[in-house]
C-alpha cells in the first residue's frame, strides 16, 4: 500500500531530500526528542544556523517527519510499503534505510499511543468491596440481610490525554446477584478467548 501525502507535507519534507545521511540521522534524533519532550526551539535554532536556513523551516521538517511516522503507524505500513512510499517522496535509497530504521524503532510505541487516543470512555479502574449484614432498619426491626457494598472506580482519559479522571460509583448487591454477575462476566471473558472470537479476530487482522 502506498500512502498519499498532502502537498504541504511534501514541502516540509523537501529540505531533507537534499541532506547528507548524517544530517538526516540528526533530524531523526531531533524528531525523537520532539516525541519525548515536545518542541525545542533552541535545538532548531542551532540546526538552522548550521544549515543556514530559517528555524521555522527546521521545525517544519521535524513536524514533517513526525507526521510521516504517524501516518505510517496509522496505516500499519510494512517495511516494503514504507520503502515504496518514502521513495516516491524523492528520498534516495540510503536515506530510505535511515528513515526505515527510525520507523521500525518507534513503531510499537507510537501505535500504542495512537491506540490510547481512541474514544474517551469510562474504563474499569478498581473495585473495592465489603461484606455487610443489615440487621435492622426503621421500617423492619428484625432482619438479617447480607449485602455486598462495592466502590466501583471508573477512569476516563482527560482532554490533555495524560491524566485520568476517576469517578466512584457506590453500589451494592446481594450475594445471589453477586454470584450471578461474576458468573456472567466470567462467561464473557471465556467467550472472548473462545474459538469463534479468535476466528473473527484473525480474519480482521488480514483485512
Amino acid at each position, binding site marked *: 500500500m502506498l500512502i498519499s501525502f498532502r502537498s504541504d507535507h511534501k514541502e516540509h519534507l523537501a529540505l531533507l531530500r537534499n541532506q547528507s545521511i548524517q544530517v538526516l540521522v540528526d533530524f531523526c534524533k531531533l524528531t525523537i526528542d520532539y516525541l519525548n519532550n515536545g518542541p525545542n526551539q533552541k535545538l532548531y535554532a542551532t540546526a538552522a544556523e548550521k544549515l543556514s536556513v530559517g528555524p521555522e523551516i527546521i521545525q517544519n521538517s521535524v513536524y514533517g517527519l513526525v507526521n510521516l511516522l504517524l501516518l505510517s503507524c496509522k496505516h500499519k505500513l510494512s517495511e516494503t510499503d514504507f520503502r515504496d512510499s518514502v521513495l516516491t517522496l524523492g528520498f534516495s535509497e540510503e536515506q530510505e534505510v535511515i528513515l526505515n530504521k527510525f520507523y521500525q524503532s518507534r513503531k510499537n510505541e507510537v501505535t500504542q499511543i495512537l491506540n490510547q*487516543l481512541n474514544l474517551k470512555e469510562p474504563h474499569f479502574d478498581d473495585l473495592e468491596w465489603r461484606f455487610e449484614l443489615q440487621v435492622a432498619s426503621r421500617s423492619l426491626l428484625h432482619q438479617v440481610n447480607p449485602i455486598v457494598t462495592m466502590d466501583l472506580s471508573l477512569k476516563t482519559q482527560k482532554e490533555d490525554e495524560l491524566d485520568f479522571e476517576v469517578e466512584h460509583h457506590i453500589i451494592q448487591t446481594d450475594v445471589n446477584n453477586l454470584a450471578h454477575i461474576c458468573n456472567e462476566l466470567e462467561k464473557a471473558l471465556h467467550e472472548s478467548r473462545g474459538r469463534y472470537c479468535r476466528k473473527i479476530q484473525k480474519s480482521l487482522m488480514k483485512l
Partner: protein
Amino acid sequence: MYLKETTKKSLQLANNLNVVNDTTYKNLLENCFSVLVGGDEIHADGTLLGSKPDLIKELYANLLISTAEFVRNALNKEDVLQYLTEECKINQKRAEIYSSAYSTNKQGVEISLLNIGNHPPHITDVSWKIDFVVKSNHLDHSGGPLFRIAFTTEKFDQENLCKKIQHVNFTCDSQEMQDLVYKLKDAVRHCERLAFDN
C-alpha cells in the same frame, strides 16, 4: 409491640357485622395485603364502601397501619391472633381470618419493608458485549477485544416514591476485565466461606 389506642379502637369496627359483612371484610384484607406487598388494590373502592363509607375507610386505614406494624415487629401468626383478640378485643372468627391472611402474606410485606430506605443503587443484572475495533480515525487496523459492560441497578427514588432503574456503563480491555472478574470472584469466595463457617 405497640399500637395507638385510636388504632385499636378503629380495628374494633371489624366486630360490627352491620358495618362490614364477611365479603367486605375479606375484600378489605385482600386490598390491604396487596397494597403492602407493592401491588394495586384488587377490589375497587366503590364496591367496598357500602352504606358506611367513613367507617370502612377508617377500618381500612387502620388495618394498613397495624399490618405494617405487625410485620415490622416480626410477629408470627399466633402472636398476631393473640394480640388482636386480647389487646384489640376483636372476635375470634374475624381475628383468625386476619391472622391466616397475615401468615400467607408476611414474607411479601417483609420484602417491601426491607426495600424502604436510603441505600445505594442495588445491582440486579449485568449485560455485556464484546467489541473488536476494525478501524478508527487514529488507526487503520484492528484492536480488541473490548468488553462493554452495563450494570443494571435499582434504587428507591425519593422524589417519585418509586423504584428507579439506572445503568452503570463502562468498558474494559482484556486486562481490566480479568482484574474485574478476579475481584468479583474474590468477593464471592469470601461470601461462600462465611456461609460455610456459620
